[in-house]
């Protein structure tokens, strides 16, 4: 299915800072080289922000890393990469080293693994400062504090002495940006800089990059899969798919009139807040709730001489039969903790929990058996939640064997085929192994396994956040259909408000282990009563450049 590739990009501005011309990256060695990207061309002007977008495997990161030759040892680049007219392909290692961190700086996705755990933030910054300038250690230390101040790090004098693991994700990314800004680069490459962060933190980081850009006039190349981020920051967009550029257009034009079918499909798949699609689930409030929490507190048990950590306070949450309750909140808000509680994986520290009309607060063995006959779970990462050594048929029916609902191999196999059919996978795949499946297919298997015991309540913990948007849309559609057919209730844990809007009948907004606000989805999202909910909604970027510009202005003013 190769579509005609749209190659007529608008002519690059006359004063391009970075020109990428017919660049391909190949992996391999010796005589065998396998290309992963094919003839990529685009440019970045000074002061311009270009977004390189695409789903996983599109080659966007590899292309960005090729600019400074930060590729793995078994990769090589061909074509022409020019920085201010200077050719970087084939440049000496010495020259590349001068360019790296000086003319062109990079910030990476996961600031935890991108910083060396054994050095302090101050050490990292000094290294960045001293790599291109001949300054004394004392001067560098002073400059480090100054850089942290520029990226609005709270108490910078203290933070230089901290190690990466002592900072929050957002602070780590600020430190990373401070390192990148150390020698005032002319081009900043940002590789998924906010993917691992919460939406409110993401907004702050994007604001910061924009502020620094306005002050220094640097060009920014941002790599992302999030169309909301694209709409928020970029002037021009380069859309990639399977190692090729399918479309290049100014941001406004691209969102308003996508030229390529793939771009259109990509934009359509992005769930957006206020899109009109709402949940098809119908809650039966006359019947007793499937899950009922009354004043529940949750504690992670502590170890010897350490008290436990209280991750949930005074929770009142109820899930009616047929209802989908969206649990939303940022990392550390306790949403996954509530999911684990509902599965009986954490004890009730105080209050009362009922599952299917039975009080299970005591957490006895019989209670747990009862919980597991009524509740099952869909996990976040389908790659690691399926046993790689078991066929998907075996994995799907394992819960049945464990609860002794089905014991014969033949019956299990038949049930597995039935369940595969339910999740729209071919029955014949029952003997395949997880590695033979794509991410979306694996998550379908995860859903089939959760449904094997005909649970009354499904706990879905971020089931689509590891998937590409187009795959996510298909999995969410399937989920809604299954819910209509089988009528199970669901606790849907997510950080994505637009997913909640599409799927959930009611929403519970959490912060620091407490319920901030709860109610019917439409009411909470359209007319939030609490400040925190309003902030969450405002921070989530929407794939519309004009709307996003308005929201940014509002956010910065307020």
């Amino acid at each position, binding site marked *: 299915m190769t579509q005609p590739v749209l190659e007529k990009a608008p002519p690059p501005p006359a004063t391009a800072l970075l020109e990428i011309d017919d660049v391909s990256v190949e992996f391999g060695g010796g005589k065998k080289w396998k290309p992963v990207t094919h003839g990529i061309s685009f440019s970045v002007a000074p002061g311009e922000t270009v977004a390189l977008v695409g789903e996983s495997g599109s080659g966007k990161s590899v292309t960005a890393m090729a600019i400074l030759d930060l590729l793995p040892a078994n990769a090589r680049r061909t074509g022409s990469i020019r920085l201010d007219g200077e050719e970087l392909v084939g440049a000496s290692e010495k020259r590349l080293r001068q360019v790296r*961190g000086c003319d062109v700086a*990079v910030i990476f996705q996961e600031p935890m*693994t991108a910083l060396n755990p054994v050095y302090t933030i101050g050490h990292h910054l000094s290294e960045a400062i001293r*790599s291109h300038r001949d300054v004394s250690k004392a001067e560098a230390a002073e400059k480090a504090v100054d850089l942290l101040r520029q990226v609005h790090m709270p108490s910078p004098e203290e933070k230089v002495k901290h*190690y990466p693991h002592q900072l929050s994700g957002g602070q780590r990314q600020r430190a990373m940006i401070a390192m990148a800004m150390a020698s005032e680069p002319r081009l900043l490459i940002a590789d998924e800089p906010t993917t691992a962060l919460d939406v409110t933190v993401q907004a702050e980081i994007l604001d910061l990059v924009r502020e620094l850009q306005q002050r220094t006039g640097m060009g920014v190349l941002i790599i992302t899969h999030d169309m909301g981020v694209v709409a928020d920051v970029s002037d021009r967009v380069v859309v990639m798919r399977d190692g090729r550029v399918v479309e290049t257009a100014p941001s406004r034009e691209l969102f308003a009139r996508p030229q390529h079918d793939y771009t259109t499909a990509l934009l359509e798949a992005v769930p957006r807040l206020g899109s009109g699609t709402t949940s098809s689930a119908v809650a039966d409030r006359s019947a007793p709730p499937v899950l009922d929490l009354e004043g529940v507190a949750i504690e992670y048990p502590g170890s010897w001489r350490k008290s436990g950590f209280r991750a949930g306070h005074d929770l009142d949450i109820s899930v009616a039969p047929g209802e989908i309750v969206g649990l939303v909140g940022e990392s550390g808000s306790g949403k996954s903790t509530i999911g684990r509680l509902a599965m009986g994986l954490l004890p009730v520290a105080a209050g009362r929990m009922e599952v299917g009309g039975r009080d299970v607060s005591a957490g006895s063995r019989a209670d747990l058996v009862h919980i597991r006959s009524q509740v099952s779970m869909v996990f976040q990462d389908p790659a690691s939640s399926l046993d790689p050594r078991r066929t998907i048929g075996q994995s799907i029916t394992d819960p049945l064997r464990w609860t002794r609902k089905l014991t014969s191999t033949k019956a299990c196999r038949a049930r597995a085929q039935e369940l595969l059919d339910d999740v729209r996978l071919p029955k014949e795949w029952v003997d395949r192994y997880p590695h033979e499946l794509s991410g979306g297919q694996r998550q379908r298997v995860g859903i089939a396994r959760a449904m094997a015991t005909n649970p009354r309540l499904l706990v879905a913990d971020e089931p689509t956040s590891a998937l590409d948007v187009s795959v996510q849309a298909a999995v969410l559609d399937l989920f809604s259909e299954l819910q209509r057919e089988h009528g199970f209730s669901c606790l849907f844990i997510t950080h994505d408000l637009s997913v909640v809007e599409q799927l959930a009948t009611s929403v519970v907004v959490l912060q620091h282990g407490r319920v901030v606000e709860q109610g019917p989805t439409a009411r909470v999202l359209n007319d939030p009563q609490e400040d925190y909910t309003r902030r969450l909604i405002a921070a989530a970027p929407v794939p519309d450049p004009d709307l996003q510009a308005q929201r940014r202005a509002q956010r910065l003013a307020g």
Partner: protein
Amino acid sequence: MTTYVLRRIGVGVGLVLLVLTLIFLALHLVPGDPAMLLLSQGDGGSATPDAVARVREQLGLDQPLLTQYWQFLSGALTGDLGESFRNGQAVSEAIGERLPRTLELVGLATLIAVVVGVPWGALAARKGGWFDSVTSVLTSIGVALPVFVFGSLLVLLFSLELGLLPAGGFTEWGDDPGRHAQLLIMPAIALAVGFASTIARMTRSAVLEMLHQDWVRTARSLGLSRRTVFRKYVLRNSLNPVVTTVGIGVGTLLGSTVLVEKVFSYPGLSSLLVDAVTARDYPVVQGVVITIAVLFVSINIIVDVLYGVLDPRVRR
């Protein structure tokens, strides 16, 4: 960091007490009366009840178990480990004479092993190719080769064939420093070979793992030289598992130098232990075991503290 160090030391003290208790219990729970054994030494004949009672009183074996335990503990903690059955020498004195020799031998062997093993492993990981393959073969041989075989080969080559070094024996440093060093070098090398191989393999795999960490790419993106990146962002991080390996290795060496001591007629702690076991000299056995246990625990504390110094995430 201070709390971390103090906690490690606290755990260490607890461990030593536990080891002392276990040794005490082991000696009292094994079947057979030490007094009987002592009196019937060698000939298997039976002693008179009178004599047995006298010996029991002498050794304090007629006291209640708890009193014996207390005496044993307080003795051990004040350095009084009893007297040898064989020659009446104070056990602490015998150990005091042998221990420095073993420490010297193990210390030198460790130094050689680290100085050779770490750079070699790092180089193998960095270069790859034929050098890595050769390293892999050599270190396999090094780990597998028994120390007495390698030791004998050394004696054969350097003493008998080339006549460069004395084949074995021991001279005090004070008497003749040159000969002391000459006698130390071969046993130390014999001990170091297997140890260096283990360290090289561990360093190699740690470096290979660190090479692919994200922070290495970050360091490269800052424009640091390859050398700096390797030294500060790869090798530095690889040291943590290496330190653990060295710590365990040193602890193991302390108790197992006996083969090397035998090959080179080197009068160290291990040979004292083996001789005492053969002669059923219980106080000496007990004393040596306690000494080795305490050393082992101390080395582990040092390793834990080093680990905290090397990796800030460990300090809690």
